[in-house]
């Protein structure tokens, strides 16, 4: 077999790392090496890893700053919850329902991503960022207005614009069940999410994102990011590839949302607000733009950090903020940067960098 290129090697190492981590955590879990609160973190961490990797596709690979990624997660979460809950009697197998929920979540998020993409991708830079933020908030408020129930007749959906309607207005038949109660969000959801499902979703996400990056489509997307005018001049349809990256990213976020939603018995739409989008963005930026395994590591570390700091109780978010600022300042410090690059070229790890400095 031919020698693998650097990119392909990184990809394989990423898969290997995730698989090894999964095995270690599964063994620990089976032997009681994790306490209850640690076990509870597993599924959310998987969801946020998928969120970070998918957002990296938009921010790192496509180069468009999105501040509304949680919106897609929200769409996926609630459409996934509705799917899983309404099929509870038809499909008794929880893993199958979970899988269907994730597919439906991904589908609806992709559709919403496409619709949002039409106006959003015409803008650039900070304007694009503010519009994605706006869409994220709009999705949140729209879901807050949603009343959904299911009974033997099927789904009942009310869009509660005036704010005066309640779950009783759904007119559910005997034995019916309210799935989403407006501002309260989804209540009484049967939690069928599992760590294994999270692991599989991560692997699927990695296959999709990494294989996409190393294809003609991925090269086109990165060409658009690096120099839009040059990309156009070599015949790349900019809108098409922006949309491809944006919709793929949204779909993956939707699948992650479905898994996330089915991990909690109660979930309000306000969970997926601006702050959640920012949280994921922080994972992506600290992990390195366009760096997939970086996103995974940053997510795990930064998600566990506040939990690990629980002993410091009220100081933990303050410490988190300080860590964030200090990391940004040190990674972008010009002096430290050249120092790091010198170190790297000394060990002959990266010859290209050297040529660049010359």
């Amino acid at each position, binding site marked *: 077999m031919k020698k693998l290129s650097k990119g392909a090697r990184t990809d394989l190492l990423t898969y290997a790392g995730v698989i090894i981590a999964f095995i270690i955590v599964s063994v620990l879990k089976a032997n009681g090496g994790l306490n209850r609160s640690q076990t509870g973190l597993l599924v959310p961490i998987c969801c946020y890893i998928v969120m970070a990797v998918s957002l990296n596709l938009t921010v790192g690979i496509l180069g468009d700053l999105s501040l509304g990624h949680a919106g897609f997660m929200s769409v996926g979460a609630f459409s996934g919850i509705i799917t899983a809950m309404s099929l509870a009697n038809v499909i008794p197998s929880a893993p199958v329902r979970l899988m269907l929920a994730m597919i439906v979540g991904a589908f609806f998020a992709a559709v919403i991503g496409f619709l949002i993409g039409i106006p959003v991708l015409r803008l650039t830079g900070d304007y694009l960022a503010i519009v994605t933020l706006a869409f994220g908030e709009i999705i949140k408020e729209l879901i807050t207005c949603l009343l959904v129930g299911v009974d033997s007749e099927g789904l009942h959906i009310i869009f509660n614009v005036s704010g005066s309607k309640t779950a009783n207005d759904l007119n559910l038949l005997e034995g019916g069940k309210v799935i989403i109660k407006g501002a309260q969000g989804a209540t009484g959801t049967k939690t069928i999410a599992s760590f294994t499902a999270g692991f599989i979703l991560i692997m699927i996400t990695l296959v999709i994102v990494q294989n996409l990056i190393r294809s003609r489509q991925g090269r086109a997307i990165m060409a658009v990011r690096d120099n839009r005018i040059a990309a156009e001049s*070599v015949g790349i349809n900019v809108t098409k590839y922006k949309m491809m990256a944006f919709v793929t990213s949204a779909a993956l976020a939707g699948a992650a949302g479905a898994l996330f939603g089915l991990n909690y018995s109660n979930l309000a739409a306000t969970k997926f607000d601006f702050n959640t989008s920012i949280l994921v963005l922080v994972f992506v930026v600290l992990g390195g733009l366009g760096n997939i395994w970086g996103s995974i590591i940053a997510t795990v570390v930064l998600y566990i950090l506040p939990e690990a700091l629980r002993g410091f109780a009220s100081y933990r978010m303050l410490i988190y903020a300080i860590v964030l600022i200090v990391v940004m300042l040190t990674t972008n410090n010009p002096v430290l940067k050249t120092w790091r690059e010198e170190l790297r070229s000394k060990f002959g790890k990266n010859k290209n960098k050297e040529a660049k400095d010359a």
Partner: protein
Amino acid sequence: MTEGSLKNMNPPGTWEAGTPPTIKVKKDPLVPVTRTSYLPERDADKTPILECIDLGITFGGLKAVDNFNVAIGRTEIAGLIGPNGAGKTTIFNLLTKVYQPTHGTILLDGKDIATMSTAQVNRAGIARTFQNIRLFHNQTVLDNVLIGLHNEMDYGMGSAILRLPGYWRAERIAKERAMEYLSLFHLDQHAMDLAGSLPYGAQRRLEIARALATNPSLLLLDEPAAGMNPSETAELMENIVKIRDTFHIAVLLIEHDMSLVMNICEGIVVLNFGRIICKGTPDEIRSNPAVIEAYLGRKGAKKL
């Protein structure tokens, strides 16, 4: 005719200086456009690859380019020269639809490109380089050319993600072709380097390689020799002729280096203040008083 060493490298067809225009001025009243271009004789009986008819663009009242009429033969190397700010790059931007023309028609191989986008124009056959180099700096030299080969590959997103056989086949062929393009420009040993790390001259060559990878029938080069030393320029001249001879395509170049223009261009258009002041062979251009005046000013022209 310029009797340089390069003459021997121009085998397809012959090109005689001072030949009367092979395409006569059309007197047909239905087409109120005068076509007064010289085409190399070997291309004369074919549709010109590019034809601009009364092309123009206005920026807020300023006529940046006006009444631009030019035809370029299918295997011609043509030059577009003129003082700074004459509107040369603007014409490239019009031809590639980066700017939308205010009026006029652009015919590429006889087809109107009015409704096309920049990307579609490239797929239709115009590739270009940029005055201020626009490479994908953070990607490897090889990837830059592979991006140029984008539309030459045909697998879809599905086979990319699932890595179907079509993906591997297309990627392998594309890589081989990309390496061929790179070796044409002696860039093959730098294939895995970052494009941004190349020296200036090599970056210019890489841009040409990338443009060629899109399989154009007309190559637009915007100041290809800028920032090159004389030996690099000489090599570039050979390369441009080699490109034309190998791929049988037309080349239109903007250049300030007169030795390059006079040596390899068969037809030259001189632009000043957005208007054509002169068209002809290098010899005709050299002796044209209007050209001398445009470059040196009225006083300078008198002194000569």
